[in-house]
């Protein structure tokens, strides 16, 4: 073979490699990236990316509005019995699953039974459901073991699966008796929903590709993505490359500050932020010296520099106002808020039984390494406490170890810095999980409050079916907690995402955020302008 022929052949190969393009590319692709794994089985997943997938693949009885309030969706109306033990929903007729079969009350009952039997994913929200019945094709009733006022809010997490499809794909034997594996293997890579998107490809560990459901029963805006891809990587370099090549429309929320700054410099990319309901607490152990002393705790609350936290470290976040994130329905905006005041801090400290022997009682603070800025908060805390003579020992602790430490009263640290979001969008969720006696020994409570008065108050509030009355009770509880000062309420977290503002209209970024994990990524409300994208690529 002559040299010229060899050169030609090599050139052809290289040309082939570089030139072959994408076959069958979507007109309005929409791509986001997430930490993995993602589960598309609503009875298995409950993390962020799984929740995003559920919102796009499945329907729920109710849908939240921007304030997190329940609105009709699959259910057109509902009512609760006077004792709050039975909740009855009337479904819209004619809603079709992706395979064309009709969504009925039997499917809703099956979805609830399946979720509570498997016990994974969002099943923890439905522990109070005794049983579900479907008296007719379009009516479903949930019977509760005890009255539970916020029941409606939990239904945002009951994703309705196609009973016939799941039953046809059950593998026997399995861990669930007659139900075999309850379709878990099938739903690992297939959906059984009626939502606005349908699974097209799901190579595990790589990405989830969904396409728009052309027969969706609700309107989908004309510029909504025709393909929706969730990519399993959070690697900053990869994210930056994809954003610059317009191969990623919204980046994940875990990008470090430096990466966000670099992303913001890309033409057409902006940083969008919204409050998703998460609050960062310094949870103080109320049974362990020296944080068992209320005056000692209040001294720390007065000494902490909240302003620096939100102005310099978690920029854009706002100082928390009490134990409930202010975007959560039922949060009381009028409760007392601490600010840095060293005189008041010293006055409180002097009333503490540990005053005069502070060197004997160093305060141990466990902080989690992700996000990395937690270290800055811990260092700031250490330095501000030094201003009033309190010794602080900060300990970088892996998340798994924090959970283990918080499992017993003895091993729990004086302070654990943890982000907590509500299980369902109501103040009662946070109050119960953060301070109720049932949640001690879990990662959601390092305070070990064990306060019978609080338990009675929250139990009473949660049993109250009337919303306004329930919210008034939440307000009283928030004040009660602030008086006890079991935590430093540091800030309500701003969830930040870099996104292609030049060609993507994302409601959450322009102030229409829904304070429930996953719902801000519903593809049918997002608009992608492909002509503007093409312009940017030129």
């Amino acid at each position: 073979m002559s040299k010229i022929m060899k050169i030609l052949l090599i050139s052809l190969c290289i040309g082939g490699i570089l030139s072959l393009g994408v076959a069958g590319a979507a007109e309005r692709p929409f791509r986001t990236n997430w930490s993995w794994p993602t589960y598309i089985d609503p009875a298995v997943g409950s993390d962020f990316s799984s929740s995003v997938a559920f919102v796009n693949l499945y329907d729920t009885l109710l849908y939240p509005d921007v304030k997190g309030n329940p609105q009709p969706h699959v259910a057109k109306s509902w009512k609760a019995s006077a004792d709050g033990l039975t909740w009855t929903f009337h479904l819209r007729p004619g809603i079709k699953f992706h395979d064309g079969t009709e969504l009925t009350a039997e499917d809703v009952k099956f979805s609830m039974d399946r979720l509570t039997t498997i016990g994974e994913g969002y099943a923890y929200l439905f522990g109070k459901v005794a049983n579900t019945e479907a008296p007719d094709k379009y009516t479903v009733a949930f019977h509760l073991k005890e009255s539970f006022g916020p029941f409606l809010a939990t239904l945002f997490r009951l994703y309705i699966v196609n009973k016939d499809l799941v039953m046809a794909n059950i593998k026997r034997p399995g861990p669930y008796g007659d139900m075999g594996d309850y379709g878990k293997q099938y739903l690992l890579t297939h959906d059984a929903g009626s939502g606005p998107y349908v699974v097209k490809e799901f190579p595990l560990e790589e990405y989830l590709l969904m396409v728009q459901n052309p027969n969706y029963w609700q309107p989908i805006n004309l510029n909504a993505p025709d393909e929706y891809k969730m990519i399993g990587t959070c690697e900053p370099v990869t994210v930056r490359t994809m954003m610059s090549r317009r191969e990623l429309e919204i980046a994940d929320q875990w990008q470090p500050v430096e990466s966000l700054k670099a992303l913001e410099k890309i033409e057409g990319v902006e940083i969008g932020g919204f409050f998703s309901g998460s609050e960062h607490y310094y949870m103080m152990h109320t049974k362990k010296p020296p944080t068992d002393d209320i005056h000692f705790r209040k001294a720390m609350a007065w000494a902490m520099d909240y302003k620096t936290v939100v102005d310099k470290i978690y920029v854009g976040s706002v100082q928390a106002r009490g134990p409930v994130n202010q975007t959560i329905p039922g949060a009381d905006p009028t409760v007392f808020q601490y600010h840095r005041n060293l005189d008041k801090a010293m006055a409180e400290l002097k009333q503490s039984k540990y005053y005069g022997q502070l060197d004997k009682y160093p305060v141990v603070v466990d902080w989690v390494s992700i996000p990395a800025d937690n270290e800055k908060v811990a260092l700031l805390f250490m330095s501000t406490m030094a201003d009033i003579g309190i010794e602080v020992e900060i300990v970088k602790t892996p998340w798994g170890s924090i959970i283990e430490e918080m499992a017993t009263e003895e091993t729990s640290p004086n302070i654990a810095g943890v982000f907590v979001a509500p299980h369902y969008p109501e103040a009662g969720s946070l109050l119960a999980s953060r301070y109720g006696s049932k949640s001690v020994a879990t990662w959601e409570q390092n305070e070990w409050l064990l306060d019978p008065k609080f338990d009675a108050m929250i139990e009473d509030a949660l049993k109250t079916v009337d919303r306004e009355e329930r919210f008034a009770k939440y307000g009283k509880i928030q004040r009660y907690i602030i008086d006890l000062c079991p935590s430093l309420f540091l800030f309500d977290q701003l969830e930040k995402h870099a996104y292609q503002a030049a060609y993507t209209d994302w409601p959450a970024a322009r102030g229409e955020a829904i304070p429930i994990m996953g719902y801000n990524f519903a593809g049918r409300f997002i608009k992608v302008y492909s002509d503007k994208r093409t312009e940017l690529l030129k």
Partner: protein
Amino acid sequence: MRGIKFLAKRLVYSVFVLVGLSILIFTIARVMPGHPARMALGARAPEWAVERLREEMHLNEPLYVQYYYWVNDALHGDLGMSLVTRRSVANDIKEFFPASLELALYAGIFMGIIGIILGTISGWYSNTWVDNLVRMISYIGIITPSFVWAIFFVLIFGYLLALFPTMGRLTPGVGPPPSITGMVTLDALITGHFAAFFDALKHLLLPAISLALGPLSQEARITRSSLVDNAKKDYVASERSCGIPERTIMFKYLLKPSFIPTISIYGLDFAAILGNAFLIELIFNWPGLSRYGMNAMLQKDLNAMIAVILVFGLIFIIVNIIVDLIVGYLDPRIRLGVERAQ
């Protein structure tokens, strides 16, 4: 016949190594801090669900009983369920291993060809500016971790020049070829899906080169040193004195024995890049076994962790046996030594 005996003996030894490895990793995995069932089901999962999973996985039994269950299942081809992917670990390995193997094979090709060529050039022109240049390039290759190369390539060829894809095995929309071996390029060639072949090749280039650069530099240095050492030996001087041309000496008499140390190291490097590719697989979102294994360890996915380590252990053993056979073929002294010892 003696060669077969040698092979059989090595295989028997390998079984003992694998059993020992399984006991070691089984014990380490279970005494590591963290509750696998709780981590799998999430921090808010009800206690009864966590307890049920613990019972399903026999985690409440003593360690030796757990090991018995595991061995019993493994001998029946059941490596258990992965707590992360929620599938059988055997299926996961079947899916993810070919991706890693394909990546390692391409890296191996770069590593072998370029490393040996560079080493040979360096040895041929020893102590000249060419040798110095190759030495400098090799040192840069050796001291730079593969993930740095990966980031560098992503920034240059993905971000600035936008010439190559930076994630995954295929571009969405490019239909994957029917799976025969699980290696996309090979399957595409077998089934005639040339669009998929070129697309997969585009996806492979950057991660494979990132993985190969370190080891290939090492191979270049070893080949060069070996060549230079052998060139000083008496038999080469004797060949020169007989008037045999330098080119013939080099390619006929010098290269073959000089490759022996290179091939030994090459084998180890090849097995190592399979196991150590997790950062590359992470950066390029490559769905390989190495990344799967890393996630298994981070999330205390017991069954997956043990299976992945055993697979990599097995690869090390196989590669070492192959290397021994090749080295034996290249160097009759070693082959005869083995036979005499037997």
